């Protein structure tokens, strides 16, 4: 059975699983700097899987998007986040609203749900990387979970960016990547978003003396 799956598909599945594994690792990580490093590794794994798809299918624009991923997700954004953490002096532990083991269990359920949702669509796909659609959706869901459970601003943003990684994986796995102009646009949005968030962190810290967003629960109805 295993012999019938081509090497490229196995490699893509491998990298996709690494991405999912890293999503779980991020969910479990309590410290800020390792969390950012995990995000960088996830970007790297995403770049590798895109590269494998590019080599197998010979789609030229996928080389570009792999390069873009490497530059943006594995190098630039982690570097910006590292700088922010250093400048803002927030190296402390990350707090979570729900304890980590419970979060992991919820995460496992999410993965099962995602696989079930993606199943009928994966069967329609003819691309070499079709099995990864479920994994992509699961990565998005796990990132979503991380945003919900974390109380500090920076982990929330890391979750936001990890969600973008999952979406990117979905784009390369279901199809062979979006048209180039769209991919460039998305990359630009992510970059500008990260810069605006950087500005934002300083404003939040000046105002609240902390990046704990539990301070920001004043706005309520009535």
């Amino acid at each position, binding site marked *: 059975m295993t012999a019938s799956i081509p090497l490229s598909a196995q490699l893509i599945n491998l990298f996709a699983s690494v991405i999912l594994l890293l999503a779980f690792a991020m969910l479990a990580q309590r410290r800020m700097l390792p969390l950012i490093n995990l995000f960088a590794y996830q970007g790297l794994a995403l770049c590798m899987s895109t590269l494998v798809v590019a080599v197998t299918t010979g789609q030229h624009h996928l080389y570009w998007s792999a390069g873009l991923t490497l530059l943006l997700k594995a190098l630039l954004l982690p570097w910006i986040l590292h700088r922010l953490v250093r400048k803002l002096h927030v190296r402390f532990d990350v707090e979570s609203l729900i304890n980590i083991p419970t979060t992991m269990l919820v995460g496992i359920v999410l993965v099962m749900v995602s696989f079930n949702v993606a199943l009928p669509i994966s069967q*329609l796909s003819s691309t070499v990387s079709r099995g990864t659609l479920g994994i992509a959706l699961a990565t998005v869901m796990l990132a979503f979970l991380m945003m919900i459970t974390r109380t500090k601003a920076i982990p929330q943003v890391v979750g936001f960016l990890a969600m973008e990684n999952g979406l990117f994986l*979905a784009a390369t796995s279901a199809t062979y990547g*979006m048209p180039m102009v769209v991919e460039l646009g998305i990359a630009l949005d992510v970059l500008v978003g990260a810069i605006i968030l950087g500005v934002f962190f300083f404003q939040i810290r000046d105002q609240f003396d902390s990046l704990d967003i539990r301070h920001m629960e004043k706005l309520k109805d009535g």
Partner: protein
Amino acid sequence: MDLFTLMLAIPLISGLLLTVVGERAWAPNLNIIASLGTFLASALLTYEIVATGPRMAFGEQFFIDSLNVFLVTLTAFVGLTTSIFSGPYMRNEYEHGRLSVPRLRLYKSMFQLFMFTMLVALTTNNLGILWVTMEAATLTTVLLVSLYRTAASLEAAWKYFILCGVGIAQALFGTILLYFAAERVLGESGNSLLWTHLVQVKGQLEPTIMVLSFIFLLVGYGTKVGLAPLHNWLPDAHAEGPTPVSAVLSGLLLNVALYAILRCKVLADGAIPDNFAGNLMMGFGLLTLATAAFALSRQKDIKRMFAYSSIEHMGIITFAFGMGGPVANFAGLLHMTMHSLTKSAIFFAVGHATQKAGTQLIEDIRGLIRINPVIGWGLMLGTLAILGMPPFGVFASEFMILTNAMKYYAWATPILLVSLGVAFAAIFGKVQPMVFGETHARPLPHAPAITPVFVHLALVLMLGLYIPPYLTNWFHQAAKMMG
């Protein structure tokens, strides 16, 4: 130069120019002149499109038909009146010490860039670019919401960024799935996300994928429309940002997000049987309407209250488009226009009222009619208009939606009627003492710009009494576009 290029170039160039030159005495005027230029270009473009039919621009990257050209004109018009309103309003804020010079500069440049992103979102033919510009519209406004740098405004902006970011990520997933479905029919090319190509093959798109895709698109863009249950960012962002920003967010951004859903709905309708997309939209619309209507009476902040009113109207419009058919689509488009004009007029009036009273708390704003009868009447008439009192235009569109619902979806009528009644009681009960009643207010250093309020209200009144055949024809064309 081509009219269309001109229309996009003006806000982009003036936005960049305003960033570079900084805050000068003539900067507010430049802001107004740029908006005026955009509006004139869009009006001429509309004339052209209605006369000659849909056209493309820049190869096939942009597509203009009667549906989006109508929203383009509306956007440019409200952009113009908002820039006129914001001149004295922002100067008053500056004199009151709430804003510094660099922030005024940030406001003007971001305002023009925001107009640019919305105009591109409306006219682009590429559903991927539509997503990109919707996200860009969030990015340009997030710093405007936190313009005052108060604790509350930062919280609102953070919520806005994160919730809309998450929402828009869902929409991206939907877009990817749509591309996946399209690729199977159109093949791997840059054209597979072009709406004009997609609409020709909509019957061949794989239904299983389209179902999932439309759900993600509706939830994603729906977050930006303010559809329940993901509407929480909206009242905060509207209440804490400067009033001109509230006016354009409410009057324009919500429309553009809804437009994105409509474009996707046309495709989904072609692929999925049994009016699946329409039913989903009706459900979300009613839920949103009811949620907002019952939240209205608990509001203490005037801008927050009108933000909830925006959510309520977005619910009605979504419901109307969900019903589909020529009458409901026509009514939906009309209601979109009416809501934009009326709600931005209300926000202009509210902006001046809160500046006078020095607070946004409803119970501290009293007796507007005595301090400044013009603002007082502006707010009162605006409120009556938005609540759907005849002879204003909102009455006409709500009446059409209601009768259409009674005819085809009778079960929805009680929900519609009860929600509208509750909303009426809540809003009217709060606005009435604000306008009439004892007062303690302060004079403003710069005379407020009242004209935009009454221009909008006059238009709404006129459209309530008489819709010119030219306009009817245009709405019919646009309604037909949606099938």
